[in-house]
């Protein structure tokens, strides 16, 4: 009897110690951000929100940006325009590999500053090949070099997008104007889409982005360039906060050589339509059947 009670006392002591150690091990979680907002935790999928709910969410996100980054911003919900299907073409004969498009993207889309994130990577490839294995992105010499050509790569907004297929929670989908978007407040961060993308077009927010208040671009949209939360995917949206309002993507405006052509492919008078009809365009990794809406071409 005595022995049993001593054993029980030891067990209780052990269990208490164990529970205390467990609590101590979990202690860092008290500083975890998602634990602070019930509304954010319970927020439903973008497609299930009515205008009033979405409005409340946009105001909450604006408040959060002010609080976290000290920047007052306006976050809109810009919808696709009926009759518009976007297409993008890039002239490889004139691209000089200056990476100004990548830099413009970095600023326009409120990317993390320390990692110098951008949705565009520019490949420098040996002339005489379009094998990506013969290319590199880490060149750091004066451009252009005569024996090379330059190929910027960003999201191809595929019509048969592998990233959309694999997402287990429908956090990413293709919009009516052809743009593939992410609901940053629905994504669970499994990164299956990042594995599925053949163009290295998706990025993960490995930590909360860092941007000085004065550098935050205040013109934002829910599905595009608002500052992303930690732990979710992000990607190029053809700057939908600009293009859906009739403006051009930031990467196009920054291009010094006019290598980039963007527009509505359903408009017979558009420049993009002219390029697609008159230039010998090709898409990257066509054999994968992804059907990109991003095209490359050479002059001549």
């Amino acid at each position, binding site marked *: 009897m005595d022995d049993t009670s001593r054993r029980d006392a030891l*067990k209780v002591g*052990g269990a208490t110690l*164990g529970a205390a*150690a*467990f609590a*101590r*091990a*979990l*202690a*860092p*979680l008290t*500083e975890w*951000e*998602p*634990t602070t907002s019930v509304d954010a*935790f319970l927020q439903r*999928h973008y497609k299930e929100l009515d205008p009033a709910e979405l409005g409340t969410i946009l105001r909450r996100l604006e408040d959060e940006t002010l609080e976290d980054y000290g920047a007052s911003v306006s976050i809109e919900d810009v919808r696709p325009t009926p009759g518009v299907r976007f297409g993008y073409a890039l002239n490889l004969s004139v691209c000089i590999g200056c990476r100004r498009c990548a830099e413009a993207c970095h600023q326009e889309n409120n990317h993390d500053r320390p990692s110098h994130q951008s949705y565009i*990577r520019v*490949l420098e490839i040996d002339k005489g090949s379009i*094998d*990506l*294995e013969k*290319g590199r*992105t880490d060149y750091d010499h004066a451009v252009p070099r005569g024996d090379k050509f330059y190929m910027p*790569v960003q999201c191809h907004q595929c019509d048969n997008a*592998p990233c959309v*297929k*694999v*997402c*287990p*929670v*429908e*956090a990413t989908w293709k919009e009516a104007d052809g743009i593939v978007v992410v609901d940053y407040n*629905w*994504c*669970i*961060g*499994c*990164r*299956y889409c*990042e*594995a*599925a*993308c*053949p*163009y*290295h077009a*998706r990025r*993960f*927010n*490995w*930590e*909360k982005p860092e941007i000085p208040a004065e550098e935050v671009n205040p013109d934002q949209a829910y599905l595009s360039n608002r500052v992303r*939360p930690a*732990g*979710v995917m992000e990607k190029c949206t053809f700057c939908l906060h600009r293009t859906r309002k009739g403006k051009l993507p930031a990467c196009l405006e920054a291009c010094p050589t006019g290598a980039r052509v963007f527009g509505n492919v359903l408009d017979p008078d558009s420049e993009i339509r002219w390029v697609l009809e008159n230039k010998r365009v090709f898409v990257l*990794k066509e054999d*994968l*059947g*992804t059907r990109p809406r991003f095209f490359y071409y050479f002059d001549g």
Partner: protein
Amino acid sequence: MQAPPTVPDVAPTAHTRTYPQFLWQALRVATDGGLPFYAWMTALTAVFLVGVNAFAHQTVEGLALTAMSDHVSWGMYIGNFTYGVGLAAGAVMMVIPAYLYRDEAMHDVVIVGEILAIAAIVVSLAFVNVDLGRIDRIWHMMPVVGRFHWPVSMLTWDVVVLSGYLFLNLHVVGYLLYTRFLGRTPDPRWYVPFVFLSIVWAVSIHTVTAFLYSGLGGRPFWNTAILAPRFIVSAFVTGPAFIVLALQVVRRLTHFHVGDPPISTLVAILRVTVLGNLFLLGSEVFTELYSGGTHTASARYLYFGLHGHHALVPWIWSAITMNVVAGALLLSSSARRQLWRIDVACVLALCGVWIEKGLGLIVPGFVPSSLHELVEYLPNQLEWKVTLGVWALGLMVFTIGLKVAIAVFSGQMHAQKGAA
């Protein structure tokens, strides 16, 4: 373990008294034992807590604390997830002899395999969860309340088959232990159909897990039809290898009777599967390297290194060496007279497949990246801590499961007279 449906000759109300009794006694058995038991569980708890703490830091500060990047966006966690699913599926190699071939000796110990399946599924699910960027949003994956992208996303299929397999094994183990606890003979109608279903299901969990990778056209290293067969065969290496070792531990440390025949049967299975696994690996390597070309860059990186990058080369050659030595030992040793050589082979096979199907499978899928950039990956200290923590959790589940099962089978745990 969920309550079994009513057994015809017991008044339904009796279960409301006997089932809590069963759970209570199970809890006592799970927390009571000799010094080695306490030492073992304390050690596992300590490792588990180190993992919990590392995971808490990772959750707060982000996955930036790991060595993963946009180039290699899955690593140690998903590698271990894959391996864990294999271990769970491999446990079926006890169930098939026991139920399909009516091997009586195997039938007596088959519960060990079913408990391993439960523990390994717990491990796999934990690895997927620690890999998520937003674990607070896990409910988005639940059907009805979330948006479950089924049947298009293979990951949703994986959720279905893994939780289904967990449920099947929990039911079978729970039912068998509870009826034994009541002192009754289990009614085959309540568990045999589930056992047969679990055999098919075991194959499905590892097939679907292979399809997660092989369905991606943009990753040539994974985009191969041989991946699912390779997964299944390697699962039939790790499952039996683990059980051979576990059965001997049970035999040494407890009064539970484990005869030689089940071990011999498992060793016979291993002799085939270890070689089968090497054969499939060889087929893969030949196809990749003989044809050449850009799509074989990942394989060249894995086995020989590429443009001065060769972080995985020592790992994969260690794995191949271990698997070859394991095969040689299994073929040249007698399970009855030289069991220690079989044990060495099992440990080697477990480690070899762990590398081959863990880092050796996941990482080369990303190296070079889809734009052919070469960014390497090896897990960092935090990932090791979380990984060991998850395995410690799995071993705790396995230990407790075994301990309760043995207590029931040996009669130490039984319903009080008059209760049932």
